[in-house]
């Protein structure tokens, strides 16, 4: 079982690296699809099958489709020009990518700091949860669990997110409307 975890994690990391350094945007988008898929597999490992399916539905089925949509509507000649303009520099990393590399390194440093600072074997909340029997064994109805918690304990964040998304939706519709007057 652990082998499957490492295979999935390996696929995800390799695909993510390709997305970051690739110059062919079409391939990058399809590798991003691979990243999301492998991540859904990792969610299943964490016994979160509902999150895994939602990940596939929303990201793989929605967001990436929209990305490909944008890609299809982009002028091919424009993509070609960008690629040609960049082909003179070094093959993988370019000077223009320096800010993104620095940002990625900064995030990585923070993550590394957290990973090394936390004593994973002796977390207090984890021992308490295990002692109280408050843990998932994989036989519960996760959908029910998520639904009840969203409607009781996390109702306020849930509603705030709904209003936020609605605002974004209205804003998008406003920006995209046809300007007939003036």
């Amino acid at each position, binding site marked *: 079982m652990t082998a499957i975890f490492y295979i999935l994690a390996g696929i995800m990391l390799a695909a993510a690296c390709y997305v970051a350094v690739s110059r062919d945007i079409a391939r990058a988008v*399809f590798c991003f699809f691979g990243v999301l898929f492998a991540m859904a597999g990792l969610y299943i490992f964490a016994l979160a*099958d509902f999150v895994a399916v*939602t990940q596939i*539905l929303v990201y793989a089925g929605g967001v990436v*489709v929209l990305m*490909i949509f944008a890609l*299809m509507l982009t002028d091919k000649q424009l993509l070609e020009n960008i690629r040609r303009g960049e082909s003179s520099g070094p093959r993988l990393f370019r000077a223009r990518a320096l800010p993104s590399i620095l940002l990625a390194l900064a995030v990585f440093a923070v993550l590394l700091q957290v990973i090394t600072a936390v004593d994973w074997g002796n977390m207090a909340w984890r021992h308490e949860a295990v002692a109280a029997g408050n843990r998932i064994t994989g036989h519960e109805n*996760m*959908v029910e669990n998520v639904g009840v918690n969203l409607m009781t304990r996390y109702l306020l964040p849930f509603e705030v997110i709904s209003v936020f998304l609605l605002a974004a939706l209205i804003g998008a519709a406003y920006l995209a409307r046809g300007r007939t007057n003036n």
Partner: protein
Amino acid sequence: MDIALLIEKVILISVVLGISLVTAMYTTLAERKIAGFLQDRYGPNRAGPFGILQPLADGVKLFTKEEIIPREANRFLFVLGPSLAMLMACVGTAVIPWGEELEIGGRTVSLQIADVNIGILYIFGVVALGVYGIMIGGWASNNKYSLLSAIRAASQNISYEISLGLSLIALLMVTGTLSLGEIVEQQRGFNWNIWYQPLGFILFLTCSFAETNRNPFDLVECETELVGGYHTEYSSMKLGFFLFAEYINIFVASAVMSTLYFGGYNFPGMDALAQAGVSQNWITLIGVGAMFVKVLLFIFFFIWVRWTVPRFRYDQLMKLGWNIMIPLAIANIVITGVVIWLTGN
């Protein structure tokens, strides 16, 4: 893991996959035969008696044809397109309950490959990914007709997925579970969901026509405007895979509709049979037969509509999806909610 369970599942998967492929194969023949009947001609009748060897002949023909990949096409994605279309069409059968349990030598065998408790969401995810084959294939062909077709496919699928999901939400409010196994068990005998969700079923049916790219929604391969649509540049068995995936999708969509709205393997009088002392294995087998009769009727309906209803215009398609289907689906949710509230369960 239990080795017997593993063998059992492998056999079950092979049988289900085999049956879906053979059904899809003969759906191609049925389509041409029924088209012939509706247009007052014979249809294929040369290969074998009544033309029953025609699908084999078609398969051999497609396999032996010359394969052409355009020079300017993106080779990797060009091959990936039909493979993905085929894969996404086949994986949908995994969560459908084909029958009750069978007793074989003291072992209870469930006729459902995986009873995951998020079955409906799984189906929905497979449907959402189904468009990838067409999009990737159409984009990689480097042909303007293929590209237009891929754009149409993407926007059509995204639009109709919304009303598909909304019509399912009303169904979930009635059933209270996402597991397909439980949904079928609740419909025991003649207590089918279609009696509680007639409008939801019509919406779901319309959306599955749109999601499988069948007439009257086959704008994706509209030959009068787009030559061959997304498969214009495809030849040989890659073309075959694209066409074949459509028939597997029809099979899966029919199975899903039978499961969700028409009781799946349940049939009227199954309790009477059990009381009359018929063994559980026979009832299960009759149930599997009932399931297949329902699936075949839906497949016939798909073909029947294709040869009777003319194709929509693209703006009509979008208007139907956004201005009619989505408001109807939301109204259906509200009505279902009010009825559940009034009846108090």
